[in-house]
């Protein structure tokens, strides 16, 4: 199915290329200002053995280097054998309808699937996907994501970014700590979006391994990568990539974003329920590169508007929240809604239980799943407001330790999740 999404001319080009050691997928749309191919060429210089590399670009028009020229390919291959400069082969097609930074996660899943399928077809030992803004990544990113795969036999390389304190909050508040509590590995960005995978892990994620075919296990690629790697005891590491340019948060469209991100995450929880229920605690993974400090820049967050949204949600969505949240949580939220902004602090324990209860509600289909996830938006805004107020004037060390505190709260509340997951009838709000 994934190969069907690759245009005919691109498939022919890949057949001409034959095989590759490394496939680099660039999801950022080419705007003519930044050409990533020279950066990739520069990065390949740092890798031993000069791997045979194919670059897959997200572009409507074929890249000049991707046009099928058998004569020049042979010349390039001959040069490759003898000369110092490896030519990455470039194949371009439209991987996603528009800029992946602005489109929801689900629409980029096809782009990831296509790149993974192309890498598998080419028999690549490693595959690296770069989805961030083209202007933010450097050749160092490519080296950091591919070196552990090619030289140190790791199977999954996830990124660590330097960002200011109010960026990447969905990851900080839900994805990262939830993944850590469920699967027992401390991965800062389990859903990338910039990732490096080995050929072995690709097979598992694509569902082409015999076991995956037999079990029919096929999930959203970004959601399934980290759990698949952990479940299959693959070697995982993180690489510090530096500063990432996060897309500006569209606070008016937050409910769409939450629904599109959390939907696959909660579905992934259902699929992997057998494995995560057995996990206790968490272990760190290997880390490469030097971490950059969290930016001192505070960023603009309209806390008052968020508190208003939270209060409006508390007044109007109690009937919906009461379908998934227990009375204790509802009482906690009502008490929080009457606090002044200066005192507005959502306890980590409350937030963690809310996330777990919504995951359970999603599984039990207490109401339409789309409604459920969108009804979570005011609660998320309440958490963001509380987080922003707490860290507004905090020092660097406090800011760095804050995510760890939240992650520990997720781990501490995991028995609650497990017991409600196994025996849902024992307690129904």
């Amino acid at each position, binding site marked *: 199915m994934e190969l069907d999404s690759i245009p005919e001319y691109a498939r022919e080009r890949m057949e001409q290329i034959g095989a590759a050691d490394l496939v680099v997928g660039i999801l950022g749309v080419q705007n003519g200002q930044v050409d990533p191919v020279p950066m990739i060429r520069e990065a390949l210089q740092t890798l031993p053995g000069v791997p045979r590399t194919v670059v897959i670009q997200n572009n409507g028009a074929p890249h000049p280097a991707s046009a099928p020229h058998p004569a020049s390919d042979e010349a390039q291959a001959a040069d490759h054998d003898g000369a110092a400069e490896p030519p990455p082969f470039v194949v371009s097609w439209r991987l996603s309808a528009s800029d992946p930074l602005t489109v929801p996660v689900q629409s980029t899943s096809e782009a990831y699937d296509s790149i993974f399928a192309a890498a598998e077809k080419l028999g690549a030992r490693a595959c690296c996907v770069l989805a961030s803004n083209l202007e933010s990544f450097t050749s160092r990113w490519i080296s950091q994501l591919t070196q552990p795969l090619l030289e140190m036999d790791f199977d999954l390389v996830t990124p660590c970014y330097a960002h200011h304190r109010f960026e990447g909050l969905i990851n900080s508040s839900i994805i990262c700590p939830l993944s850590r509590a469920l699967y027992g590995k401390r991965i800062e960005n389990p859903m990338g979006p910039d990732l490096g995978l080995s050929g072995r892990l690709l097979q598992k994620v694509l569902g082409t391994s015999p076991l995956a075919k037999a079990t029919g296990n096929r999930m959203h690629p970004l959601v399934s990568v980290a759990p698949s790697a952990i479940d299959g005891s693959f070697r995982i590491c993180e690489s510090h990539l530096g500063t990432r340019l996060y897309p500006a948060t569209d606070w*008016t469209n937050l409910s769409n974003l939450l629904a599109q991100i959390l939907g696959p995450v909660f579905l992934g929880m259902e699929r992997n329920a057998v494995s995560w229920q057995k996990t206790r605690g968490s272990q760190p993974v290997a880390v490469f590169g030097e971490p950059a400090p969290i930016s001192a820049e505070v960023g603009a967050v309209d806390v008052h508007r968020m508190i208003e*949204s939270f209060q409006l949600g508390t007044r*109007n969505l109690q009937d919906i929240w009461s379908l998934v949240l227990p009375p204790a949580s509802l009482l906690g939220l009502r008490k929080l809604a009457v606090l002044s902004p200066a005192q507005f602090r959502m306890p980590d324990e409350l937030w963690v239980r809310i996330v777990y209860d919504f995951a359970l509600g999603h599984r039990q*289909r*207490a109401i339409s799943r789309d*409604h459920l996830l*969108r009804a979570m938006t005011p609660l998320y805004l309440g958490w963001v407001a509380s987080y922003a107020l707490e860290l507004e004037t905090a020092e660097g060390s406090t800011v760095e330790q804050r995510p760890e505190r939240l992650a520990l709260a997720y781990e501490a509340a995991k028995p609650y999740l497990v017991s409600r997951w196994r025996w849902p009838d024992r307690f129904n709000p």
Partner: protein
Amino acid sequence: MWNQARQALNESMGRLLSQFANLLPGIVALIVALLVSALVAWVLAVIVRRSLTGIHFDQRLAGWGLPLAEWSPSKSPALLVTRVVSWVVILIGFLIGLASFDAALTSQLVHSLFAYLPNVLGALLVLLVGNIVARFLARSVLIGAVNMNLQYARLLSVGVKWLVIVLAVAMALEPP
């Protein structure tokens, strides 16, 4: 004259008793039919209630968003279905008992009821679907309006709900 009055009274009493005697078998038959139908209704109610409880009927309906709980006694759609089944059986027993008085009357009554039944069922279906759609749209509007920070979110939601319900009622009442 007194003898004539007494004779007239005796005759009218005789006619009354005669008519009562003619009706008595029918009354007895009606009472028996009601008693039997009540017994059958009770047995069916127990079976239906146990079956619906066994398949978690109330929880499933709540999960599907069907609004029956609001109209049900003790907020239990299973109890509502059980009572509907019981009363239908009792009504059938009543109609059977009624046939013992005048078979033609019962036949006409049943015939007119069954002739109108498809219209009633169609209207009920339209109302049910309309209610489900109304609740779904109301919830969508409520969540969307809250997420857009609209203070009148609940008013908007109630307005949409009643708009759809009124439309459904209008469609249900429309003559075939």
